Each structure stands twice: as structure tokens, then as C-alpha cells.
């Protein structure tokens, strides 16, 4: 008897191995890794551009570049790629991979939407890179008018730049909706908002900022496209437009975007510090709420980027709100130091990168307060001091935390450990190279060296040479990391479920987790940071099967009396 075989889902072979990362997938773990790998590729591209910038600046005269336009392209694309195609999507990748696991769920609230958000990213990257085919953007990552207008940027690359950012903005809005719904609606039984890992809190705060601010970027880019393509006059004063309109809307998005780039990094830090110091997070609620406070304040400080162009009455309010941000940030710093205090610190690569964040972010934060002060800012505006400041925040902050996060969660994502020796070499080279590159820039800025120039006064040469040496060290630092990842993927030590003896739910399943994450619904620990407590020890001993209620009074996390043993597992 002839039988017709109906094609069923099982009959279509699922792509295996690397193949599943190359196709449309609605599995949040696949999507998370897709985000991480794509954005790491753009880290290498942006890094290459940075090295070219530093090589050009090795000598005061023009050496590598034929003209200033080529140099303008370098720093424009470096900044744009690093921010929009590396840091933002990299952290979204961590969020995608970790949030459902940390909440003990099978997936995000809207898996299909999640895939859609990711698949906007590669086209956005290609559109951005395609700029090189038609004359790339040269107006800086801030794209101020009239530099980005038809007069000074006649090339289509500037248009492609705006289209690419539009796609990335849409992608991050969809992602943010997905994260908030997942976090609010899909926590497991036994996990209140105050029992979520702080990384989840940070993604929650970040997503709120994205919903408030990113639509402004989308609107501003739309007006830019209208001006460039449809001959409208939003930004050109000659026809009654206002160049400050762009600056206002751009910074209304891009200042909060700084927190989009650093809050999840701070979330990574809270988790890594607590796990590797074997101490409960100090001031859990303060860390969680300070993220929301930073998010709120971050939306009302955009004018501090425009002290030199803003109406004078608006300067003082923006200065004060900006300085206020130091308060919740200081609360976080204090809490992290409190977390480390008296802990049984394991100097793993993840921990070293996190300590690197702590030390460097303090410097970046303090120079931020300098720049918030109007008289100082007017003096230092558009000098290398500003470049030093934001690289201490973004590289010394976000990037070091991202590497810390990779060393911490790589075992979960791949089932294999990274080599600690190579990790420490990676850390040492990155840390030293970073400091050598960016610390001299403070002095260059104070001495008045303007940014975004490719030739400079010979009196700045010595510090620029130091800076370029540092940049080359950072480039070398990537090599041990890439070798480490490549070797570990094939021959790394098997990780087991929970190599760091951590308490949060992502560790309560196999590494890498099965397709639906958990074989049976997991039971969250009553305190995700209860290291050194009897409940935490019992939870770990049972492999995540027994969660005792915390012995303290109800839901006190972090503000509990410190009678619990401060050290030990």
C-alpha cells in the first residue's frame, strides 16, 4: 500500500551546530548569541578604525590620511559603530540570553518579535558599512547641522547613516517592549520584583529609558532625512529652521543612551561582584532603585552637552540635574565596595574585569562632574578632555563589564570554561593599554588640544605618542581573548551546571541550557545573592531544588543585619 508521508515538523531537519545561528530562530538563547557575535564583529571593525585614528595622530603632521575628510570619516564611523552596533546590541544580547533564564522561563514574552528585533541589526550594519561605497558619513557621531546637511555632507553616506540608525532604534524599541513585559509578567512563583537578579533590574530600567528616549532619535532622524531628501527646512537657518533643534532632540536621546549603554553593564557588575566575592549584594534595593533614578535624571539633563550653544537661563538647571546624577551613581559605587568588603574574593578573569570597571568608572564619573560644571565645560568643550571622559565611562565602564560578563557567562552559554591564564593576560593588556591610551588625553584636553583634528601643534606630540602606544597594546589584547574563545569552544574544560556556585536561576540548568531552558519549573532562591548564608548553602547543596525562606525579616535584602557570616560559601 502506497503511503503518502505528510511533511511534519519532525521531518524537516533542524539546523544544528553553527547553522542554527545563521537562520531565523525564535529561541532567545540563539538570538542572544546572534546579538553578541554580530556586535563583537562590529567591535573589531570599530576597533580597527580606532587604531587608524591613533596611528594618524602619532605625529603632528598628516601621515596616513590624504585629507581631513578621510579622518572625519574615521572618527564618525568609529563612534557610530562602537555605540550603536557594538555596545547597545551587545548588552541587548546579554539581556536576551539571560533575562528569561534568570526568571526561570522558557523564553521571552514575544519570541517572534524578539527575532524580528535582532534581524533588523545585520541590515542596519550593512547599510552603515555601505556608506564606504557611496562616500561615508563625515559629520561625527553627533551629526550636528550644518555639518550633516546637504551643503557639507553631499554624499549619500550621511543618508545611509540616518537609515541605519533608524533601524537600530526600531530594533531597540521592540526589544525594550519585550523585556518589560517579560520582567513584569513572567516572574516565577516565589520571585518578587525585590528578588530579581540586579542584572534583570538594570535591563528593566534600561528598557524604560529606551521607550522614553529612542522615539526622539527616530523623530530627529526622520527630520534629517526630510531635510536631506525632501528639501524641507527644519535645521537650516537660511529658510527659518533651527540648527539647535537637532542638537536638542539628538541629546534628548543620546544622553539617556549613555545610560542605555552603562546600566546593563552595571547590572553585570552587581552579579559578578557578588558571586565572585561570595558576599550578598550590599544595598540591593538601593542598587535597584538607583538604576531607575539614573534613568529618570538621565532624561532631563541633555542640555549639558550644549552649554556653549544653549540659552543662558537654561544652563544652571541642566548643570544641577547633571550633578545630581552623581548621587545614584555614587550609591551604586558605595554598594559595590560594600559588597566586596570582607568578601572571600576570587580573582577570576570575570572579577578582574569588574574591578577594572570599578576603578576606571570612578575616574570617568568624576570627570563627568567636572564637565557638568558650566565654567569648566566652556573651557574644555570639544577638547580631548571630553574624549578622555567618555572613553573612561564607555570603555572603562561598559566594555570592561562586557568582557567581565563574557568570562562569567561563557561557561553557561557554551558549556565550556574559558582559560583563566589567557583571561588574565587579556585583562592585564586591556587595562594597561586602556589607561595608557586615555589617561594622557585628560592633559591634552586641559592644554587645549581640540578633538576631531588630524594635524596638531607639535607641543602635544609626546602625550599623543603615549596614547597611540596604549592603543596598540589594546589591539594586541584582543588576540589572547580570541585565541581563548576559539580554543575553549573546542577543547575547554567542561563547565558543569554551576561552575561559580552562583544562586541565580540561569545556573540551575545544564550548560548550555536545553531548548526550553529547564527540564522542570525551577525554584528560585529566596535571596539571589544569599552567598554565605545557610539558606544559600542549602540551596546550592540541593542543586536548586530546595529554597528556604530567608531567616531575616521578610523581604529585607541587603539591608539585613550583617550578623550573617561575611565570608565562605
Amino acid at each position, binding site marked *: 500500500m502506497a503511503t503518502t508521508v505528510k511533511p511534519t515538523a519532525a521531518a524537516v531537519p533542524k539546523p544544528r551546530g553553527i547553522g542554527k545561528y545563521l537562520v531565523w530562530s525564535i529561541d532567545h538563547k540563539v538570538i542572544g548569541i546572534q546579538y553578541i557575535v554580530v556586535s563583537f564583529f562590529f567591535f573589531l571593525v570599530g576597533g580597527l578604525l580606532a587604531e587608524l585614528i591613533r596611528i594618524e595622530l602619532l605625529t603632528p603632521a598628516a601621515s596616513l590620511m590624504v585629507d581631513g575628510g578621510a579622518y572625519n570619516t574615521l572618527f564618525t564611523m568609529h563612534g557610530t559603530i562602537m555605540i550603536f552596533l557594538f555596545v547597545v546590541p551587545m548588552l541587548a544580547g546579554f539581556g536576551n540570553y539571560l533575562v528569561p533564564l534568570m526568571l526561570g522561563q522558557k523564553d521571552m514574552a514575544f519570541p517572534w518579535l524578539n527575532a524580528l528585533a535582532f534581524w533588523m541589526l545585520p541590515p542596519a550594519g550593512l547599510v552603515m558599512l555601505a556608506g564606504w561605497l557611496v562616500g561615508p558619513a563625515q559629520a561625527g557621531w553627533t551629526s550636528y547641522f550644518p555639518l550633516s546637511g546637504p551643503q557639507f555632507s553631499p554624499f549619500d553616506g550621511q543618508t545611509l547613516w540616518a537609515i541605519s540608525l533608524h533601524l537600530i532604534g526600531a530594533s531597540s524599541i521592540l526589544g525594550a517592549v519585550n523585556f518589560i513585559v517579560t520582567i513584569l509578567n513572567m516572574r516565577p512563583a516565589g520571585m518578587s520584583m525585590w528578588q530579581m537578579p540586579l542584572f534583570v533590574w538594570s535591563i528593566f530600567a534600561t528598557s524604560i529609558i529606551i521607550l522614553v528616549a529612542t522615539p526622539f532619535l527616530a523623530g530627529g532622524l526622520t527630520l534629517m532625512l526630510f531635510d536631506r531628501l525632501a528639501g524641507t527646512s527644519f535645521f537650516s537657518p537660511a529658510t527659518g529652521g533651527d540648527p539647535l533643534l537637532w542638537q*536638542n532632540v539628538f541629546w534628548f536621546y543620546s544622553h539617556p543612551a549613555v545610560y542605555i549603554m552603562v546600566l546593563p553593564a552595571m547590572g553585570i557588575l552587581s552579579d559578578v561582584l557578588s558571586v565572585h566575592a561570595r558576599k550578598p549584594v550590599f544595598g540591593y534595593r538601593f542598587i535597584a532603585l538607583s538604576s531607575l533614578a539614573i534613568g529618570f535624571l538621565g532624561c532631563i539633563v541633555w542640555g549639558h552637552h550644549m552649554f556653549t550653544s544653549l540659552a543662558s537661563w537654561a544652563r544652571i538647571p541642566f548643570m544641577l540635574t547633571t550633578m545630581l546624577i552623581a548621587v545614584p551613581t555614587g550609591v551604586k559605587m558605595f554598594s559595590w565596595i560594600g559588597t566586596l568588603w570582607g568578601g572571600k574574593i576570587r580573582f577570576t578573569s570575570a572579577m578582574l574585569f569588574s574591578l577594572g570597571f570599578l576603578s576606571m568608572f570612578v575616574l570617568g564619573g568624576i570627570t563627568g562632574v567636572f564637565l557638568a560644571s558650566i565654567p569648566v565645560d566652556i573651557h574644555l568643550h570639544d577638547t580631548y578632555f571630553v574624549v578622555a571622559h567618555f572613553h573612561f565611562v564607555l570603555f572603562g565602564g561598559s566594555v570592561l563589564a562586557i568582557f567581565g560578563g563574557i568570562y562569567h557567562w561563557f561557561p553557561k552559554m557554551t558549556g565550556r570554561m574559558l582559560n583563566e591564564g589567557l583571561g588574565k593576560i587579556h585583562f592585564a593588556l586591556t587595562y594597561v593599554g586602556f589607561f595608557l591610551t586615555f589617561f594622557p588625553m585628560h592633559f591634552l584636553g586641559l592644554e587645549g588640544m581640540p578633538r576631531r583634528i588630524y594635524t596638531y601643534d607639535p607641543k602635544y606630540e609626546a602625550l599623543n605618542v603615549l596614547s597611540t602606544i596604549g592603543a596598540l597594546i589594546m589591539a594586541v589584547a584582543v588576540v589572547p581573548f580570541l585565541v581563548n574563545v576559539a580554543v575553549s569552544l573546542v577543547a575547554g574544560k567542561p563547565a558543569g551546571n554551576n561552575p561559580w556556585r552562583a544562586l541565580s536561576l540561569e545556573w540551575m540548568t545544564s550548560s548550555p541550557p536545553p531548548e526550553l531552558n529547564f527540564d522542570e519549573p525551577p525554584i528560585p532562591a529566596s535571596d539571589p545573592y544569599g552567598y554565605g548564608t545557610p539558606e544559600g548553602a542549602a540551596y546550592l547543596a540541593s542543586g536548586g531544588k530546595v529554597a528556604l525562606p530567608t531567616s531575616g525579616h521578610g523581604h529585607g535584602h541587603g539591608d539585613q543585619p550583617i550578623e550573617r557570616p561575611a565570608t565562605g560559601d
Partner: protein
Amino acid sequence: MTANFAKMQTAFDHDQFQQAQALKNARLGLLLWRFANGMAFVFFVFANLLMRNVQPSWPPPGVERLEVTLPILITIVILLSGFTASRTLKAVRASQLSATLRFGLATLALGVVFFVGLLAASAQVPPSGAYSSIVLAMNTFHGLHVVVAALILGVVLLRVRRGHYSAEKHWGVEAAVVFWHFVDAMWLFFFAFIYVL
């Protein structure tokens, strides 16, 4: 057999739970989407206000204030469509599928009238640099939202005709109507800043 039944019951409860969870997620998701989308409308008003700020008067000197008759008429039309949209949702909740379809089509028709009116009102705007730029940009932005809302409602109405929805299960209708109301409200917001203030 009892055990089997219990198993079936659990599976059924699980299914119910999944559906309830999915609905809860979808509602919150749409709420957040409206918030973000609303921020984009706020952006255009913000841009409008900043552009006034650099002019000695608004409209700028030498530019005529816009004719307001047609805009008022289409505003009445879109308010009516909001009313029919509410009735569409009410009808599906009462299982009156033919009424759902009727009110839905009326909403769609009013939406088309509004859109045509918006095009006509935009055609009346003489080119005048900053003033016409922001007015036309706001009209375009809102018009695109009307098109999207109408497409969503159109697809949902096709599904109503095929009997996809019931009093218990009608998320599609609810979403289309909720988004329609959002687009209505955003027009009132824009109307105030284009024509009144």
C-alpha cells in the same frame, strides 16, 4: 481513568493559563508600544515648539495662518470613527458578529474619509520654509499611522467575516480598536498644536 482525566484537566488548565498569560502579555505589550509611539508624537510637538522659539511670531512673519475649516471637519470625522470603533469592540464582546463587521466597516470608511481630508488639508499648505515643513511633517507622520491602523483593522475585519473571533476570544479586534483610539487621540494632540495654539 481518573488519573487520565486529572492529567487532561491539568493539561487543560495549563492551556488556559498559557492563553491568559499570552493575553496579559499582549495587552501590556500594546500599552508599552503606545507609550513609545506616543513619545514620537510628543517629539513632533517638541520640534514644533522649538521651531517657534527662533521665530519672532508663529506663523513666521509674512506667512498666512492655515485655513481651519477642513481640519475641523476631519476632526469631527475621526471623533465619529472613535465612536464606531468603540461599538465594534462592544459588539464582538456581545457576540454580535454582524454588528462587529458593520461598525468595523463604518470605522474603516470614516478613516478613509479622514485620510483623504488630511491629504486635501496638506495640499492647501503653501510652501513657506519652516512653518510648512513642520506642519506637513506632522500631517505625514499622523497620516502614516492612520494607514497602519486602517490596515490592521482591515485584516481584523476579514478575520471577523471568517468567524475567527468570539465573545471570549477577540484579542485581534481589541488590539485594532485600541490602536485606532490611540491614533484618534494623537490627532487631537496634533490638531491643537498645528491649528489652535
